[in-house]
């Protein structure tokens, strides 16, 4: 059997016959050599090794304490992105992902303008069945608005099957989160994504298209402001509870909103600086009361009035519930002042362009 190894030449290579060498009398040397290999592994295993170029040492990652190194491109489950600054979701419900999804686990409904009933480039509800999702990443690849991305979170185990049908509220992640897990991949698309977002925000009325957990807060705040605006007539009723938690929560609003609210508060404060009746809930604002800033206050008032108007006109539900019950945190004078200013501003601005564009720019 011990022939010279057989081989012939073929284009760019050879056909080689494996060397069997199985007819030799064996005396246990192969066993000892195998044991030596194992011994070396045992000896070296007390050293931790993470290098790709070595074959000895322990490679174990002690999982819960130590997380595995996850590359940027890693894809597990899809998530939806929203803009940190405005709270607007990037998704426009173009249905591309729903169409491409091989296991058909993405479901969405497009938002409609309640006033006109026309579709708005935003998504009303977005459901992904995580349990059937195969993590192929086509949805993220195909999305023209970079609204759907693949998450790195993999600890999704649960004992509740229903939890794996994930709705929009749980799918939403801020852009900053995605930028932190996949910096270069986000950097590649950032420009175009944000540009497209701006275009879409313009076509979204009211809170449509804002991440739901923000929407509620925004709506609450707007209702509150609207109540403030509507306060002049029933101003006599004093508010029994001074201020609900809504304004504090609203502190987590996007900077824009925050600025507006801050301005309103400051305006109110400035209007009745001497009274010293500062609503306790607004203690979160910087302690030093800034000088009355007319412009800011006006801006706030404009926004409030705008919101109030819109709320009264179109979005009846939150307004209706919000208006009568929402207590006015400021006192009479401030409310009146704000209302008057709001009314003025509203009158003035109504002729001009849309308020949103001015505010946005």
């Amino acid at each position, binding site marked *: 059997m011990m022939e010279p190894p057989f081989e012939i030449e073929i284009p760019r290579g050879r056909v080689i016959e494996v060397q069997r060498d199985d007819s030799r009398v*064996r*005396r246990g040397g192969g*066993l000892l050599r195998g044991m030596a290999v*194992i011994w070396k592994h*045992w000896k070296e*295993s007390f050293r931790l090794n993470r290098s790709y170029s070595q074959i000895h040492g322990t490679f*174990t990652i002690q999982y819960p304490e130590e997380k595995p190194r996850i590359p940027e491109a890693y894809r597990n489950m899809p998530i939806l992105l929203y803009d940190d600054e405005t709270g607007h979701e990037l998704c426009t419900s173009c249905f591309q992902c729903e169409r491409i999804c091989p296991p058909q686990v993405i479901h969405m409904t497009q938002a409609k303008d309640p006033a006109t009933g026309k579709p708005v480039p935003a998504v009303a509800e977005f459901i992904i069945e995580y349990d059937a999702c195969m993590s192929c990443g086509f949805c993220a690849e195909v999305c023209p608005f970079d609204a759907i991305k693949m998450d790195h979170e993999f600890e999704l185990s649960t004992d509740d099957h229903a939890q794996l049908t994930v709705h929009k509220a749980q799918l939403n992640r801020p852009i900053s989160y995605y930028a932190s897990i996949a910096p270069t991949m986000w950097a590649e698309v950032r420009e175009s994504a944000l540009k497209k977002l701006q275009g879409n925000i313009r076509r979204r009325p009211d809170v449509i298209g804002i991440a739901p957990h923000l929407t509620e807060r925004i709506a609450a705040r707007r209702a509150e402001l609207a109540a403030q605006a509507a306060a002049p007539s029933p101003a006599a009723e004093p508010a029994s509870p001074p201020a609900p938690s809504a304004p504090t929560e609203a502190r987590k609003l996007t900077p824009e909103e925050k600025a507006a609210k801050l301005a309103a508060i400051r305006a109110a404060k400035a209007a009745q600086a001497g009274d010293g009746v500062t609503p306790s809930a607004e203690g979160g604002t910087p302690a030093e009361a800034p000088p009355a800033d007319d412009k800011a206050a006006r801006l706030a008032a404009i926004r409030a009035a705008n919101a109030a108007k819109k709320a009264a006109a179109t979005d009846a539900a939150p307004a209706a519930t919000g208006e009568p019950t929402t207590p006015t945190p400021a006192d009479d004078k401030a409310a009146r002042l704000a209302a008057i200013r709001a009314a003025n501003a509203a009158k003035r601005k109504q002729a001009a362009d849309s308020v949103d564009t001015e505010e946005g720019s």
Partner: protein
Amino acid sequence: MYDILQALINGTFGWGWPDWLIYLISSLVVVTIILVVAPLQMLFFTYYERRVIARMQDRIGPNRVGPEGIWQPIADGVKMFTKEDIVPEAADRIVHFLAPCVVVAPTILMFAVVPWGPGMTPVDLPTSLLFFFAVSSISAVGLMMAGWASNNKFSLLGAMRAVAQMVSYEIPAVLSLIAIVMIVGSLSINSIIEYQAGLLISNRDLPGIPDLGLGWFVFTPVGFVAFIAFFIAALAEGERTPFDIPEADSEIVAGYMTEYSGMKFGLFYLAQYVLNFLLCAITAILFFGGWQGPGVNWLYAQAITPTNPDGNGLFNVLAGALGVFYFLLKTYIFFFVMVWLRGAFPRLRIDQLMDFGWKFLIPLTLANLFSAAVWVAFTRWGAAEGMLITVGWSPVLRWLAAFIITLAINIGVYLWLTQVYAASQAERRRVELEELSATL
């Protein structure tokens, strides 16, 4: 134990208790110790094996329960206890229940003759070695019962394989022991251990060798071959890789344990690991001096013993502790080797296993028996026994002659046997082919 208690109670305290009471107390203490130690060894071994083999595979092994996972076996035990005990519908219930007991009982019984340290033999039988192997053969019956009572083809097949393997490999195991027994001239495990005092050379073979407790049999050609043969046979008896055919999960699921669950399964596991411990222990005792080691004999000479009742009890403790340390160290090293083999090798097929046992190991041990006879003749016999050649030789020369001759015999036999074994397999293939062509 009896001596110490006797010295302590009647000597130190002077209470004058009757003999039988002391005897009873010492027996109870010993039994308790054994019944506690045996399962503890098993628990430790499962942990030890998993950790070591994990390291061999570049893993870490169980390290979650307790520091470095040391309570893992306890957790496993709790799991075993709380599992449902399932008995198959078609099983023979009584036999199915009895089988694990019959398997466990002998392994515990075998502890009775294992010396842990100087003067620390639970029962010092004059036939203890024979007892050890006699009792170990009982568990084959238990396996048979388990395999048959489960009423499952895989179980029965596994049990038959296990029993066939145990019975066949008992022969080379005992044959390799007989070589040692011939040299020592006693079946008592204690005298075998005592024989291994010395330094590389037993001071019974060559008087005048300083006693460091290192005159192990493994340093002689006879002992070395016996050790290799015995260890291989022990692997087969303990159903360890590469002879773990009875529970070859890639072939017959879990062998005779297939239909067992819960604590009964745990008992099989217990029996297996305790048996492994005992086999490692007996290997250490027979070929590596058991508790022999530097210092033990010196300490023990000053302790309370039947021959030296005025000794100091402290030295009993010291010698015992040192002896137990040496003994367990050796045992654990052998278990490490078992795990090492498990990490390195695949398993043999049942017919190859039988071939190896009958056609290789048994001839090898038989030849080794001859070597042992030569050894005894050269080192001990004189003119009276008919060994006229060695008359007038100095002990060193006799020892050297014995060493060289046995070494030559054993190496020659080994080389010849490997040749013959390989040739026999090729021959069988050839014969089959010839028959094939004859059927034309």
